């Protein structure tokens, strides 16, 4: 798994690439929670995710809960087909705010 972060539209966007599985989900979790600790609303870009397991999904859930606790916004953008399949299995596709892009999320915010 690779990741990088950027600032866009008032959000921190963390882009995860590759396979987010048990071997690297602790790093994904750490990055997600660190971004939120920085007091920025967070979008997680999953467009480059080829595989995500339940531990990866758990990291997203922790981010969602941490954002809520700190009154920050959280969402997913560009969710890959592989990632969406797993989110649907977990019934989280209706829980996380999901948009195709940062622009789409910003439009929805307004």
């Amino acid at each position, binding site marked *: 798994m690779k990741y990088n972060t950027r600032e866009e539209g008032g959000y921190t966007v963390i882009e995860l690439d590759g*396979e987010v*599985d*048990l*071997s690297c989900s602790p790093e994904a979790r750490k990055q997600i929670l660190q971004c939120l600790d920085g007091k920025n609303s967070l979008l997680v870009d999953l467009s480059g995710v080829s*595989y995500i*397991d*339940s*531990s990866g*999904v*758990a*990291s997203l*859930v*922790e981010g*969602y*809960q941490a954002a809520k606790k700190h009154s920050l916004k959280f969402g997913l953008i560009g969710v890959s087909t*592989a990632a969406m*399949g*797993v989110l649907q*299995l*977990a*019934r*989280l596709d209706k*829980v996380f705010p999901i948009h195709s892009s940062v622009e789409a999320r910003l439009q929805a915010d307004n």
Partner: protein
Amino acid sequence: MQPPLEAEILFELRLPARPERLTLVRAVVQRAAETAGCGPELSQKLVIAVNEACMNVIQHAYKGDGSGQFTLEARKHRQQLIFRLTDHAAPVDLDQIRPRDLDEIRPGGLGVHFIREIMDDLRMGHLPGGSGNFLEMIKNIE
């Protein structure tokens, strides 16, 4: 209970119970499913379920210490794929292996749910003499 003797062996792997090995497991399961005639969507679901089961062995049976080994076998019998996972950790409490209510939004407990959603039948138990645990996951394929 062992799979039927006339079942065709697709693969047998013995692996250290370490998370880094899961990428290998997924690759092998993907190819085995395709070899058995599964389409891309079904193959991907089988990868998800078997990956989650292996994760449970790594995290819970061996408590994540990386010291143990597990065996993963795949067999085809008629129109069924049978995945059998065996570990040599202490016997787990089988009553604890149950999916949770998904209406509750929390990080853990998704793996068992994924396995039960995807597979058609599960059999689990302890190995003789308390020497470990097994899990069999069965999928009916067209």
